[in-house]
């Protein structure tokens, strides 16, 4: 599976997408050779044939020729445009995760990768994923910019501080491969690597069972929700307190009306901002009284809280499940 070979000329593939990228690259190489090889051949032939001393017809006039110029402008351009469209299509695919993808949260920090599975399993510098199921990585950095790179998937995405970025892939074979940090991030940049372990679906389920799964991500968030006193204001129904704050049930994915008249979709980025920068977007009809939690919570805790609030999406504000 992962024999350390001394000499290697082509990287392994572990997804259908990787195969498509390779195909694109090979096609493009062929096309480029078509445009470049004639130049090399002409250079060699001309420098041999027209060298000083050889007896060949010469002509000092070379004013240029518009037809020739236009030919070698238009042909490569058209060829490149076809490949541009094809590669944009692939790029679009690689940047738009399918809706049913399994979401794994990634927190990068100097110089390690932390992963949180939906079931609450946590890993450092190792990532177990199931084969044959789209996996969406939702990533954030705690310090500098990093970049998660899986050569076998032909995919990478920078991991930024302060913003979630996303990457997805669907593995089509089991195996153990290396992933790396591709964006230079300081002293031990080169040691910031990940072991990507792709398991058959049933093996993955088994692995999930064996790992520490005392609490799901949302349950962990629920604990934090109480621990940091969020429930004091954001409770609805019978526990509603004196302080009026927007109820969070059914919030996730909804279109929220804001105090300045605009609207926002309550996605994870919105909820993250609301926790860390509560004054940024105020829900219409509420006082801007929420304190910021930016110095209190780290990115992993925020991810748990978001998971908890997300789990409330299916609950109606009156407490009933539809």
């Amino acid at each position, binding site marked *: 599976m992962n024999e350390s070979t001394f000499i290697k000329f082509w990287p392994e593939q572990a997804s259908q997408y990787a195969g498509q990228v390779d195909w694109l690259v090979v096609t493009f190489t062929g096309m480029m050779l078509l445009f470049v090889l004639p*130049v090399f051949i002409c250079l060699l032939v001309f420098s041999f044939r027209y060298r000083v001393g050889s007896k060949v017809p*010469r002509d000092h006039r*070379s004013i240029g020729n518009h037809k020739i110029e236009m030919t070698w402008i238009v042909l490569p351009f058209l060829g490149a445009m076809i490949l541009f469209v094809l590669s944009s299509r692939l790029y679009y695919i690689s940047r738009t995760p399918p809706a049913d993808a399994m979401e794994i949260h990634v927190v990068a920090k100097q110089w390690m990768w932390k992963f949180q599975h939906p079931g609450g399993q946590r890993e450092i510098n190792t990532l177990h994923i199931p084969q044959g199921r789209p996996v969406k990585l939702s990533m954030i950095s705690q310090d500098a910019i990093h970049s998660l*790179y899986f050569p076998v998937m032909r*995919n990478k995405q920078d991991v*930024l501080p302060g913003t979630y970025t996303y990457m997805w892939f669907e593995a089509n074979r089991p195996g153990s491969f290396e992933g790396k940090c*591709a964006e*230079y991030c*300081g002293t031990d940049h*080169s040691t910031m690597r990940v072991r990507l372990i792709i398991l058959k679906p049933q093996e993955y389920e088994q692995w999930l069972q064996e790992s520490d799964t005392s609490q799901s991500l949302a349950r962990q968030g629920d604990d934090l929700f109480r621990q940091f006193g969020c429930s004091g204001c954001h409770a609805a129904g019978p526990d509603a307190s004196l302080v009026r704050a927007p109820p969070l049930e059914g919030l996730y994915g909804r279109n929220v009306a804001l105090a300045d008249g605009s609207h926002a979709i309550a996605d994870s980025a919105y909820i993250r901002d609301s926790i860390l920068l509560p004054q940024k977007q105020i829900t219409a009809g509420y006082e801007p009284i929420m304190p910021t939690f930016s110095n209190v919570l780290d990115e992993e805790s925020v991810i748990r809280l978001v998971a908890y609030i997300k789990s409330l999406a299916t609950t109606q504000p009156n407490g009933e499940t539809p």
Partner: protein
Amino acid sequence: MISETSHVASTEPSYLEVEHGLKSWLLTTDHKRIAILFMIAVTFFFFVGSLAAGAIRIELITPQGDFLTPDGYNRSFTLHGVIMVWFFLIPSIPSVLGNFLIPLMIGAKDMALPRMNLASWYLLAGGGLFTMTALIAGGVDTGWTFYTPLSTMFSHGHVVAVIAGVFITGFSSIFTGINIIVTVHTLRAPGMTWFRLPLFVWSLYATSVILVLATPVLAITLLLVVAERFFGIGVFDPRLGGDPLLFQHLFWFYSHPAVYIMLLPGMGVISELVTASAHKRIFGYSFVAFSSVAIAILGFMVWGHHMFVAGQSMYASMLFSLLSFLIAIPSAIKSYNWTATYFKSRLTINAPFLYTLTFITLFLLGGTSGLFVALLAADVHVHDTYFVVAHFHYIMVGAAVSAYFGGLHFWWPKITGKMYPELWGRVAAVTMFIGFNLTFFPQFILGYLGMPRRYHSYSPEYQFLNDVSSSGAAVLAVAYALPFFYLTWSLFKGPQAIANPWQAAGLEWSVPSPPPKHNFPNVPVVDFEAYDYPPEATRGRN
């Protein structure tokens, strides 16, 4: 063709002999002497940058990272990048060859703003020494790109000092750019219309436009990085309300055009060298001329291709990818036209020609590999890997440095009045071609295999190709050291050069080698086209 060669035998002392003593050099306003000063400075910086490159290649012989500490390695590649980009590649051709040749090529006595010209040298030399001291004594581990928030919050080292040095040097670039533009506009000899200008002048004019317009954006960006590091005004720090992607936008708004600052002058040199070795007019003069201008303008519209995986919006990425394909067109035009010029020519094979061949070959490989990086889905895979490293070294070292060396050999007789040893010149050129490809071609494969750049240690599977690369670097070191020795030797022992040893066209060859202080005894009147080779120059006697 230049008709009168009578004044070649004039007894006016050359610019080298007209004055003597250190002061006559350090306070000179003669563009030719300032060019020599620049040559000494950039040679020194090239040497320093190469030492750092050597350290990097030695480190990468083994996968473990046992030669340098991680910080030592990071500082080495930062030093290599900063010195090579701002203190060698950017000033090399414009300030050395451009300074020396532009007045001679357009029939002027000097540059338009001679004192600014000298100030430009002091800024480069002063800024360079300052930066180098900071890089060696304190060390900076941000890479030459100074990406935030790493450079503002997490890097320990003399970031601010290095930025100050680069900032100062920016003024040197701006001064040179202003000077070249004003000179070309105001000091052309009577009859020297725009379409009679040598293509070298066209390309340097386009380069200067970039220098003048892009450098200030780098200046303000670096200033804001300093403000963030010193005062906590977090323009690029998300925790303080800023956006690190904005830094990348502004940085690449300068640094992508900066690639053309390094490459365009090289293209200009090659246009001269191609015609001189072919002894005929260039194929499609106006296409080559306008492609320089097109590159100068389009070069400012493609910077987002450095940010395809940085978190930039998908649609912006697609737009930048499309524009990046457009800029390949003017580059392709040049390569095809150079090749077409050789058709039915009378081709002299000498060291400058070998450098020209090296340039065209490596530039085409570098340029096409650049298209892979512009190709969205391919770039997602190879971005920030050795593929990119190989790509830009093909352009900046393979192409630009070869052009500098080719130009140096070609105009060496004019600059110094001495001929370089031809055999050694050819040996060095061929060694450079072999050494370069040995060093950098394996890096394309390494990158596609997935080895990220700026890695101090790496997986053992990459070792073989890294070893090939490191051994190539040793060959390359010899190839770069050779000219240093034989060119210096030729200064003392080389045979005297005549005014026009290559039978080349162009005003610069109509004056003695080395030229007198004011270049032309009388203002030349230009009544001939560029590359005005007579039929017999091409047909020759054999």
